[in-house]
């Protein structure tokens, strides 16, 4: 008898699998037959994603109040020596997964919608939507999977989709380079992830998280070095994917991809997968590992935020900001503010996606400006992403500006916006953690984390206000170079509704009310309450302190930026000081160059060296042996010819001589023969005589 509950669970699992497989189906269909479909099948892909969104929301309502259900689908078994080792495709349905599904499918759907307008006139339109489908499906795989091996597989596939989308305009050498760089740097992280998997498998004999949870339910992870290594290995995977220090350098380059794809992959979902992975494997992380994670996240938050101050590329600022925000999430994970990290993940997904989409709208318009100039006969190949050429777009693109403004406020962490709730929770978490550790160990270095975090909040406010002013306020700066651009500028307008709707929806979702009724604290909001995790850290501090500090930090950064950039005269000409610090920030701490020197060059030299060894030493040895063999053969043939043959020839010569000699007896006359006969008889006679006596 199957109970009703089982049937309901089965139904949920079935829906989850459907959400997983539908985008994969669109990938297959559009990849192979996309060029034959009307409009290259863009509406088909969008429709499917809409269905996925609907199903996800349905699933969320179904599973929200249920305990976690894990469905284990056997994949294959390996006959082991003692027992058969099962490999499972496990799916865990819990509130977190359900929320993440909604986030992924919602943003994916909106990005699909946006792309229909944004990408339509671009090259390779046929390939764009299948790649999005592949990405979404693999991403949902990460969200659903409750098995580390399956997670790893989806993890790599997500990276592959990201590779395809970063290199989407593959004729651009920069795009080709960026996609390779992104994949390879991720691969470094994945090797760490793999080593983590090896240790987990060796120690527990399974990849299944449900089984691991069972193992660790009572004892928790033991503080052994090997488990710390395992945890850090898995964390290295997160460092790669979530662009943490020191592997963060791929993300700014990844902006070579189409902007909507950047919004989906390199802002909202894929890069956050690392944090999601940490949440999944939280049980496996030892105290030491968490400490490393906390400091890595903090460092990333700061190192990611600072270069954003000097960037001129509108997307690069957002990319650096993404690195920094991901740093915040990792930091929160490290300081055991588990719920805050995940909360920030979700709020960030919305407002960052929104920022990218608005940036995309701006770039789109700048592109039109360029085209308009071309039509009017003064073509100039200016950089459409350069913020220093923008300005004053606020009045021309009111909807875009509104969406941008809301999500910008959310990112900065202004009260009444979603980002404030989550960022405040993280700041509070770091403070509580530092105080807790200070009280127990007396060490002050724990305070580095909250202090750095607060500093980073200020920096964030600074660079975002700077961007907002450069793009939306003041004068349209292209006009200072080309006064003729005025009529083109007048034509700048908000994009069509296909692009507007996603921006508006995401902007709206960046307001506090969707996450918590209280605009100043997210702790009792529906989401954070559900994600709550029993932290061993005893609160030492009133939440109000964190709130105040947070607001003050934002105010400081924002007012500084306002003061510095508001005077409207901030023009390109004023940007000529090339101080060392500025160059350092502009070049992202010269990390590319550093990697070039410490990793790539030695690696290539090693490769060339090993090729040389192969050609010269190994093959040289073989050739030497071969030549030695040939030489030896010559020697043997010499002996053969002169020594052995010589002996034979000597024998032949002797017998020839003997023959000649004996031939001389054959004279051919009877007298001669008679004489020899007589001689012979005499000789025989003599012989007999000698023997007798």
């Amino acid at each position, binding site marked *: 008898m199957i109970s009703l509950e089982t049937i309901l669970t089965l139904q949920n699992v079935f829906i989850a699998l459907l959400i997983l497989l539908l985008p994969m189906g669109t990938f297959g269909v559009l990849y192979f037959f996309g060029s034959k479909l009307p409009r290259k099948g863009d509406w088909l892909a969008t429709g499917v994603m809409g269905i996925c969104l609907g199903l996800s929301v349905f699933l969320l309502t179904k599973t929200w109040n249920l305990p976690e259900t894990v469905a284990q689908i056997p994949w294959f078994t390996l006959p082991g020596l003692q027992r058969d080792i099962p490999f499972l495709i496990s799916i865990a349905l819990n509130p977190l997964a359900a929320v993440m599904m909604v986030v992924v499918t919602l943003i994916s759907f909106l990005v699909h919608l946006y792309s229909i307008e944004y990408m339509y006139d671009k090259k390779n339109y046929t390939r764009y939507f299948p790649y999005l489908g592949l990405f979404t499906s693999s991403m949902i795989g990460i969200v659903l999977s409750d098995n580390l091996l399956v997670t790893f*597989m989806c993890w790599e596939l997500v990276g592959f989709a990201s590779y395809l989308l970063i290199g989407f305009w593959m004729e*651009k050498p920069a795009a080709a380079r960026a996609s390779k760089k992104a994949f390879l740097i991720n*691969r470094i992280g994945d090797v760490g992830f793999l080593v983590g998997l090896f240790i987990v498998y060796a120690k527990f004999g399974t990849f299944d998280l449900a089984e691991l949870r069972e193992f660790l339910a009572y004892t928790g992870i033991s503080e052994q070095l090997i488990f710390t290594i395992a945890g850090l290995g898995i964390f290295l995977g997160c460092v790669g994917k979530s662009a943490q220090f020191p592997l963060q350098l791929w993300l700014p380059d990844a902006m070579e991809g189409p902007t909507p794809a950047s919004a989906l992959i390199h802002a909202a979902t894929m890069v956050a997968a690392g944090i999601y992975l940490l949440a999944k494997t939280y049980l496996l992380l030892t105290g030491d590992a968490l400490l490393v994670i906390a400091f890595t996240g903090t460092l990333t938050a700061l190192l990611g935020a600072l270069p954003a101050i000097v960037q001129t590329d509108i997307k690069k600022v957002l990319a650096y900001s993404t690195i920094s925000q991901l740093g915040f999430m990792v930091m929160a994970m490290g300081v055991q503010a588990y719920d805050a990290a995940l909360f920030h993940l979700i709020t960030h997904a919305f407002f960052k996606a929104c920022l990218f989409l608005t940036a995309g709208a701006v770039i789109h318009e700048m592109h039109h400006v360029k085209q308009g100039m071309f039509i009017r006969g003064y073509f100039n190949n200016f950089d459409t992403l350069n913020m220093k050429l923008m300005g004053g777009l606020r009045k021309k693109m009111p909807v875009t500006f509104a969406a941008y403004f809301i999500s910008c406020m959310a990112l900065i962490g202004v009260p009444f916006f979603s980002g404030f709730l989550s960022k405040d929770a993280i700041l509070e978490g770091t403070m509580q953690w530092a105080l807790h550790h200070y009280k127990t160990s007396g060490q002050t270095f724990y305070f580095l984390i909250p202090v750095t975090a607060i500093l980073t909040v200020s920096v964030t406010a600074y660079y975002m206000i700077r961007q907002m002013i450069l793009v939306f306020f003041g004068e349209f700066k292209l006009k200072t170079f080309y006064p003729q651009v005025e009529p083109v500028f007048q034509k700048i307008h908000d994009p069509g509704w296909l692009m507007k709707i996603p921006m508006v929806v995401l902007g709206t979702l960046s307001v506090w009310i969707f996450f918590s009724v209280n605009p100043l604290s997210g702790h009792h909001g529906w989401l954070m309450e559900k994600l709550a995790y029993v932290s061993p850290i005893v609160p030492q501090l009133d939440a109000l302190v964190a709130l105040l500090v947070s607001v003050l930090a934002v105010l400081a950064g924002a007012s500084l930026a306002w003061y510095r950039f508001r005077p409207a005269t901030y023009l390109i000409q004023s940007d000529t000081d090339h101080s060392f610090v500025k160059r350092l920030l502009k070049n992202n701490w010269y990390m590319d160059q550093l990697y070039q020197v410490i990793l790539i060059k030695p*690696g290539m030299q*090693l490769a060339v060296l090993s090729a040389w060894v192969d050609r010269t030493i190994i093959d040289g040895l073989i050739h030497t042996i071969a030549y030695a063999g040939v030489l030896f053969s010559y020697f043997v043939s010499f002996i053969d010819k002169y020594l052995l043959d010589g002996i034979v020839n000597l024998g032949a010569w002797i017998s020839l001589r003997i023959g000649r000699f004996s031939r001389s007896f054959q004279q051919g006359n009877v007298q001669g023969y008679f004489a020899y006969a007589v001689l012979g008889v005499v000789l025989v006679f003599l012989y007999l005589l000698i023997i007798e006596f």
Partner: protein
Amino acid sequence: MLSLLIFLPFISIFIIASLPMRRYYMHKVITLFTTAIQLVVSIVLFVLYKPGKGIQFEEKYNWIEMDLGKVGKLTAQYFVGLDGINVSMMLLTAIVMFVGALASWKIVENRKGYFSLFLLLCATIHGCFLALDFLLFFIFFEFMLLPMYFLIGIWGGPRREYASIKFFLYTLLGSIFILIVMIGLYVSVVDPFQSSLSAGITDVNIFKTRLASGQINRSEMVHTFNMLLMKDPANYIPGSVFHTLSTYTLWGYSARALAFLAIMIGFAIKLPSVPFHTWLPDAHVEAPTPISVVLAGVLLKIGGYGMIRIGYSIFPEGAFHFAFAIGLIGVISVVYAGLNALAMKDLKKMIAYSSVSHMGFVMLGLASVTVEGMNGAMYQMVSHGILASMLFLIAGVLYDRTHDRMIDNYRGLAVKMPAYTAVVIIAFFASFGLPGFSGFIAELFILLGAFNAKYTNGLLPQWMAIAATAGILLGAVYYLWTLQRMFFGKFWIRSGITWKEGLYDLDFREKFMLVPLAALAVVFGLFPHLLLNVFSLELKEIIKVILVK
């Protein structure tokens, strides 16, 4: 059924030989048809094969019988059969040979000779995998060299003489090692069934106990080449060279240990593993595309297959004692060949070195003597057979069009050849182990096994697995770098490269070869049990025997 696989090509050779030269189209068609029948037969056998039920589809006929009087009796059998170890190899051979026949479509010189030799190759490779009698195996193993030598030496590139003689001598050297061991085994092993008949004992077990206590006359012993009988220590004559208690030693090593080493070196040359690998890049660069495909797709696998079939099965204690050395050579192969691949400027040479690197994984997996590692090694052989075929076909596609394979001479090929680029992306990503493709499962298992060995049997240190992950990273580096340089960016081609008919995209024949291979890689990547079921039980038995020692 199995003899059909081996002897059908001979019939076809006869037909081809009797057809006049000008009917060259028929030569192709007959070859393709023959390989197609073999493919169908192999698939049927693969499906009908029941895992874990011992030798199946066996055919056993007495072949050579000689009464040597006092020394005993010599027997060699025509003994073929399927067990878990060779069934997947048989399928792989059939697939690769079929693809190879298709890839030979554009051969123009002396087609009659080419296709006759190709079919001869086809027969000998099948024979080599199916033979369960050592002598038969060895004869096929050696005989394979003849068609390969001529196929490279006549239809190859500019340095074909050098490459073919290098290939020939190298492999011949390897087979000398194997020959020595074969003779030693033959002298040491008796067939208990036939011997008990000739000794007039009805019960084989009684015979074995008497044999062990030395009560059997030498003249009554029937020596055998049967590889299955060689596995059982009870079949060894007491006091013989390779008896488990043999006291023969050389340089402090027992005769059996040396025999294991000789076998491993012999097959390591074929595999090939560093430092015996330098024949491979040369042979690949000079060989025509279909021969490269066959070489990488199946011939290399005979190395790994031989290690399992002879080294690990007959001398299990050797596997235990030399695990570290084998693992070390495996890791060195993985990393060193990977580095070499990175430095290559010739696309085909890069792929050749990547083959060496991937076969290094096979050795690492075998060395671990864990369930994961051994299964991974077998899996890697099949997976690499498929992927390497794809990769060499890909190199061939470009070479067909321009007669130039230098990576630096091309840019942005994706613009001109989108379908080709898509296939290349799939093949490259599959080859460096993207999940969803067969290579991932194989390499994951090998690394898991190598890492786990410390905890289960203590044979390998953990750094080996971790060092081998560098190979995975290197794979991604050289493949992605090649992709970026050759296929992306603005279209550009070095002037002076002669285009045959322009850089047209894949034609139907090329798609027909490449797409099914890609599909197979995906199928084996998503449904590993299709292959694992076939060989995992057999490998488990081998591991058990090794670990008992």
